């Protein structure tokens, strides 16, 4: 079979998925890439393996929702969506895998597809058509025609690539970068730099193929991946004086590219969010800045107070915000880093150098920038941390003074200091079979809250979150012993439990999520304590969750006052 078919790529992905060990995976990918001849095939293949149907800087999306795909699959297989597709999806935990297996297994479906060995370019044409088609039924028609020409294996990866997400084969962009470096005998750092600069794995691969990686230079309006922070718990800090502290804002990370009157904003996942924030665009475009790229945070700011992230959410994703929305939730872009100034990238400069330039820029053009504080002791950190919380912020960021801007990486140059947002007493409802090292034990748990006296529900308990950790090995063992006794029913790897065991759950935040039974989800839930001492009557209720959510919204927030989180000389 020719190398440039989509089926060959799908087979490679499957092989990578079932192979353990990063080097072995990279080796498979190198063998594959070496066999591709045309530049276009190299570009598409590497892009599909790491980015998706479209390059992440293209700004394009196929915009095909889960339901569009799932209902089409049910129709294709002539099965009932609610009754047959949904439980199948629940059993595998993956809609694309479910669709692959249904297309393989169900005779009615088998009769409809025939492998036509589409090329990578033909697949690209299908993605492009999906991009320019907006109606759901037309998108479904395009998908249907495509699936008829593919094997179920191809369909699985087609769906994953279409989603612009991970292929879930344990081989992310980093692996593809390594494979590109190996295939074309280039230095991995050079490849990675070119990828960040071009914003495209496919383009990088072609540059590498032609020995032209040095042509990759930073361009305005192509976002570069953000530098990320590690939790301070995971890193021992020996000398606090090597770091500078800033408050960690209760807002949304953003990269602003400004050139003359043109301003573009990019979110942390490098999506284009310019249309949602005309007030920020106006703010920057009126300032006559030199060519500038800023890293910072968008916050709702009113009456000299930073308002909760939940209010900012009302502006996120709104493409044409109304006058009322703009005046109800006014936002500010608070800058903390300068990545590019007047034609010169600054990633390789130290934080001190970048900061100095940023301060000059902020002074000249009146831009809000973070307050930076020196730290001498843990006590200093404690005081600043409390002040940050009083401002309504999440905690502190510690940044190493001598660090470069490590785009796309999460290392220890930036550390975040956060306080868990809250805890709930929950009851264990389901146990899920072991992940990884904990194979053979039940290590993941669905926890519930009480709705016993809640007229909106018939159940006694409903799920509020799933927790994977926070317990010791000894506690896990003890829980597993109890679980055996309280199992009511077994669903493959999942056990339905008699509600009995009370767990104090710690989490970062409560968010509204209409798709769940409780209509709320917890961010980063994990075990705090197993409450062997508590009984079902002690389990917190949905009303408690609703109350906590409201309280968080209306928490008193200190005005910026005399020790502000940021400086803005207007």
């Amino acid at each position, binding site marked *: 079979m020719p190398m440039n078919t989509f089926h060959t790529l799908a087979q490679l992905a499957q092989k990578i998925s*079932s192979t353990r060990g990063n080097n072995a995976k990279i080796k498979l990918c190198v063998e594959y890439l070496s066999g591709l001849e045309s530049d276009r095939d190299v570009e598409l293949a590497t892009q599909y393996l790491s980015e998706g149907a479209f390059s992440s800087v293209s700004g394009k999306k196929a915009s095909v929702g889960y339901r569009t795909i799932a209902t089409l699959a049910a129709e294709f297989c002539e*099965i009932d969506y609610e*009754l*047959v597709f949904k*439980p199948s999806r629940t059993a595998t935990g993956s809609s694309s895998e479910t669709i692959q*297996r249904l297309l393989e297994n*169900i005779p009615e479906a088998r009769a409809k597809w025939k492998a036509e060995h589409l090329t990578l370019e033909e697949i690209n044409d299908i993605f492009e058509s999906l991009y320019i088609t907006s109606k759901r039924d037309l998108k479904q028609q395009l998908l249907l025609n495509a699936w008829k020409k593919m094997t179920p294996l191809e369909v699985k990866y087609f769906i994953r690539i279409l989603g612009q997400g991970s292929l879930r084969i344990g081989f992310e962009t980093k692996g593809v970068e390594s494979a590109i470096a190996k295939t074309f005998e280039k230095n991995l750092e050079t490849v990675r730099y070119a990828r960040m600069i071009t914003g495209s794995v496919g383009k990088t691969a072609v540059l590498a193929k032609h020995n032209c990686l040095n042509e990759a230079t930073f361009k305005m309006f192509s976002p570069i991946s953000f530098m990320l922070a590690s939790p301070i718990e995971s890193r021992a800090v020996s000398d606090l004086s090597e770091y500078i502290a800033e408050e960690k804002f209760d807002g949304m990370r953003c990269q602003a590219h400004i050139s003359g009157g043109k301003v573009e904003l990019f979110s942390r996942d490098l999506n284009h969010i310019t249309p949602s924030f005309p007030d920020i665009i106006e703010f920057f475009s009126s300032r006559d800045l030199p060519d500038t790229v800023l890293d910072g945070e968008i916050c709702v700011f009113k009456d000299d107070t930073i308002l909760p992230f939940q209010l900012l959410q009302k502006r996120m994703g709104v493409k044409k915000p109304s006058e009322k929305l703009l005046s109800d939730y006014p936002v500010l872009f608070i800058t903390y880093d300068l990545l590019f100034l007047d034609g010169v990238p600054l990633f390789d400069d130290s934080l001190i150098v970048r900061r100095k330039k940023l301060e000059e820029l902020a002074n000249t053009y009146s831009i809000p920038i973070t307050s930076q504080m020196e730290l001498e002791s843990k006590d200093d950190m404690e005081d600043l941390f409390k002040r940050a919380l009083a401002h309504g912020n999440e905690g502190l960021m510690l940044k190493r003074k001598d660090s470069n801007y490590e785009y796309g990486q999460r290392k220890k140059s930036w550390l975040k200091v956060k306080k868990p947002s809250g805890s709930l007493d929950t009851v264990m409802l389901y146990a899920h079979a072991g992940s*990884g090292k904990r*194979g053979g034990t039940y290590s993941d748990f669905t926890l519930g809250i009480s709705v016993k006296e809640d007229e909106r529900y018939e159940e006694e308990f409903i799920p509020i979150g799933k927790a994977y950790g926070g317990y010791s090995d000894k506690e896990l063992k003890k829980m597993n012993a109890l679980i055996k006794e309280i199992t009511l029913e077994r669903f493959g790897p999942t056990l339905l439990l008699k509600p009995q065991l009370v767990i104090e759950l710690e989490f970062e935040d409560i968010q509204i999520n209409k798709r769940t039974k409780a209509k709320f989800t917890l961010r980063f839930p994990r075990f705090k304590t197993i409450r062997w001492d508590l009984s079902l009557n002690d389990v917190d209720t949905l009303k408690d969750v609703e109350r906590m959510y409201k309280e968080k919204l209306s928490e008193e927030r200190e005005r910026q006052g005399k020790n502000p989180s940021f400086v803005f000389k207007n």
Partner: protein
Amino acid sequence: MVRIRKAGHHGILLPELKIGLDYSGSKAEHYFVSHAHADHMPRNRKLTVYATPPTARFMKLRGFGGEVIELEFGKPLETENARITLYPAGHILGSAMTFVESELGSVLYTGDYRTPPAPATEGFQLPENSIDQFITEATFSLPIYKWKSEEELSAQIHNFASTSLKEGYTPIFTAYNLGKAQELMYILKELNHPIQIHGAGFKLCGVYEEFGFPLGDYETYNRETCEGKILITPSSALGTGFASSVKKKRIAYCSGWAANESRQTQLTVDELIPISDHLDFFELIDLCEKIQPKKVWITHTPNPKVVQYYLDQLGITSGFLDLEGDGQ
């Protein structure tokens, strides 16, 4: 028709006939054990039960303290108001379906079963007389489950073992101690390579040999000498030091659940071998269509409605035997 009552996790009771099927309660007079897996053996260890000769041996070896009266396949037992005959279920060695005939009608209780049968079993056979009520497990009751052929699976098993050995790795198959472990050994014996099996499974292998299923060149697991052998163990033992002395090893997870790709990362294994000792969804529907019982009772599944939906389309009446209460 015969009344059927599910007694929670304690099996099934036919109250009028005082027959218990994998039943642990006190309301039966005649107890039948379908096979020697823990979830089917009576919890009350003092009961007197009927079972096939291999199942009787396994039960004793696994600590059952009561009396087991051996009942051969196809040899009916008469009680005051029923006739009970055991038929091979194809799940593990000795596994039986229990066929109950009475004036109230007939019931076939499958226990766990597989058709086509698993290789190291007495096969799969249905009663010739008509079946009024068919109580079937439906562990893999979704159309995502369709097993590969025995040839394909055997090839995958052979290939995993020989490739690992060739590349200097010790292959480890994780499988349940009784049934799956011996089935693997039965398939692997063609390779003529020494096998070591975890102690709990080892003590059960003799029963297979006794009943005519040679399992090849095997011995009990020994930490000092296991490197380079083919190893078989329940996955729980991997967490408690099994073969921890061996640096270069590869692990294959052998179970029907291995059909789900997520198992690979969940369990951190090198290979998923979806070999099941239950029948798949399509085999289940086909079998019901072939038997055409007056009523199909479904148990052991989170998705009874899926099976019922397909049976409805075939005009076959069905119900779900929930944890408690009478089937209705």
